[in-house]
């Protein structure tokens, strides 16, 4: 596949090897540093002169953060919220995507415009007013305020619709001849085809929920509902010198995400191909 060509004419094996090492190091250094700092004692973590590895590896930071019930609660609440958010988000967006891809109905153009306008509205432009709106709706300090406002996503709906448009009509014709309703076609023909695209949008939703910071700090004051980023942010503000624990907590908070990326790496990496430009 043209490999011989690039091997011969491109950068030499040595240069490319060095390049690879630099790239991997640059990507992984902050995470590695986080991991190692979690094993350092309070005095070692900011010791001068700087030292990469600790003299004594301690696990106290990891055990004490795991014994902090607020941390565990934040992880659990965020995980639960992220799962519900992702499931609802896929459901709502894929249904609309199917309707816009395959059904013909009155006012379709108008509704399409309505659903696609949000693509051009940056989240921050309406963030503050959204806060006023959810306050008026009495949604503050509930899980709903974290989950509901972000479920419908013009971008994801558009992305799924593009995929549905590429599914050959022949597939549903057979079902149609058998007299299947549109719902049945959606569930039996389209959903089984959607795994790849759902993984791509689902991971995006999950990461978006898990990593949200500003919205939770605006809407959640109840410590029982603190989200994980909020917990870490507060930790930095209030206990800024306990670096070892903060690093241990940060590392534990990214583990589920790294796991998610590793499990679905093939889908995600190919998903960029379709979601980016093409």
């Amino acid at each position, binding site marked *: 596949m043209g490999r011989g060509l690039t091997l011969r004419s491109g950068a030499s094996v040595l240069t490319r090897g060095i390049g690879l090492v630099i790239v991997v190091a640059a990507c992984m250094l902050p995470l590695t540093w986080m991991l190692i700092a979690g094993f350092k004692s309070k005095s070692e973590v900011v010791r001068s002169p*700087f030292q990469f590895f600790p003299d004594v590896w301690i696990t106290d930071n990891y055990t004490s953060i795991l014994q902090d019930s607020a941390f565990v609660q934040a992880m659990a609440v965020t995980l639960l919220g992220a799962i519900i958010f992702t499931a609802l988000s896929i459901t709502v967006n894929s249904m609309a995507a199917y309707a816009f891809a395959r059904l013909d109905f009155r006012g379709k153009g108008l509704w399409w415009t309505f659903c696609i306008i949000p693509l051009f509205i940056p989240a921050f432009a309406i963030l503050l007013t959204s806060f006023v709106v959810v306050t008026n709706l009495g949604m503050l300090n509930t899980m709903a305020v974290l989950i509901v406002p972000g479920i419908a996503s013009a971008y994801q709906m558009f992305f799924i619709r593009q995929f549905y448009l590429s599914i050959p009509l022949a597939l549903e014709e057979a079902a149609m001849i058998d007299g299947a309703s549109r719902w049945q076609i959606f569930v039996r023909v389209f959903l089984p085809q959607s795994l790849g695209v759902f993984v791509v949008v689902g991971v995006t939703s999950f990461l978006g929920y898990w990593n949200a910071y500003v919205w939770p700090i605006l809407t959640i004051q109840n410590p029982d509902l603190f989200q994980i980023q909020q917990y870490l942010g507060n930790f930095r503000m209030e206990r800024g010198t306990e670096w070892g624990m903060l690093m241990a907590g940060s590392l534990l908070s990214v583990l589920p995400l790294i796991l998610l990326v590793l499990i679905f790496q093939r889908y995600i990496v190919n998903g960029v191909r379709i979601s980016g430009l093409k």
Partner: protein
Amino acid sequence: MTSPGISVDRVTRAPGVMAPVPSPITTSGRRRRSRGPDVPAHLRDHRTAYLMIAPMVVLLGIFVIWPLLYSFYLSTFEISFYQDSTFVGLQFYQYVLQSPRFWNSLWVGFKAALMIVPATLILSFLIASLIKTLGARLAGAMKTTVYIPTAISAVVASVVFVLMYQARGGLINGLLKPLGIGPFAFLSDVDLALPAIAVPAVWLALGIATLIMLAGLMDIPQSYYEAAELDGAGFFQRTWYVTLPLLRNVILFVFVTGCIAAIQLLDLPLVMTRGSGGPVDSTMTPNLYILSQFRDPRPFATSFSITAALLLFVILGTFTALIFRTVRSDKAVDG
């Protein structure tokens, strides 16, 4: 009972939006067997369609469209908890545009974009070019490696970079010391604070930019390179005359989305500076400024910050719309 002979298979092409719609196989004149004998199929389809888009429409209506319209309302009224709100016209717009701190924040956002976007473009292009020369397995592993930082939250990136920036015992100063530079108090230095925030921003953005670049590179037919090589073009000539022109749309896309994201930087400066935007507003990005105004308890501040957010939206929205149009017209030419 006859079902009307409409072609239910017709895929309607909705207006608007960028990408070309894949052309469907057209089957016309097919009759649909209706199971519910009383309701004609096309009416059933209408009902199904409305049911399917209803959750989407309602949610977007309440949480996107309504806040947007409400923003315009709030930006023209002075809200007070003690008396009725009064219409003040464009007064808040005037206040925002006369506020030196608003302009300063735009300048900070612009400087942030100036640091983040070129670095992201160049690095992602280089990394993508490198990955392209690898075998499938190694390339797959590299793609996942560069993608992993993308999954990390800005909060976590902030805290780990703050630790790495520490003047005492920090990794960066520790690495600079053998070179005889430093130590620097990165986040307390007016000139260094913004670049220090730009670094994690690049780190977070690099993965997705690289994957988009790589997808673009993969779309360039290998035969173009072979032809260029037959004509005696070296590596740099092939990059300049073949790769970059054909990658123009991809680069433009990364450039635009990168600029928008960089100007809107919020979580990083918020956590890294503990919300101060300091030192001396040097990391006070537009969104951080607007948020800090919003959290100001005085009622005036609410309208002020919402107005500022709207003005920023107009600036960014114009920018986005213009570029998306450019991208679309380019696609038509390229086919």
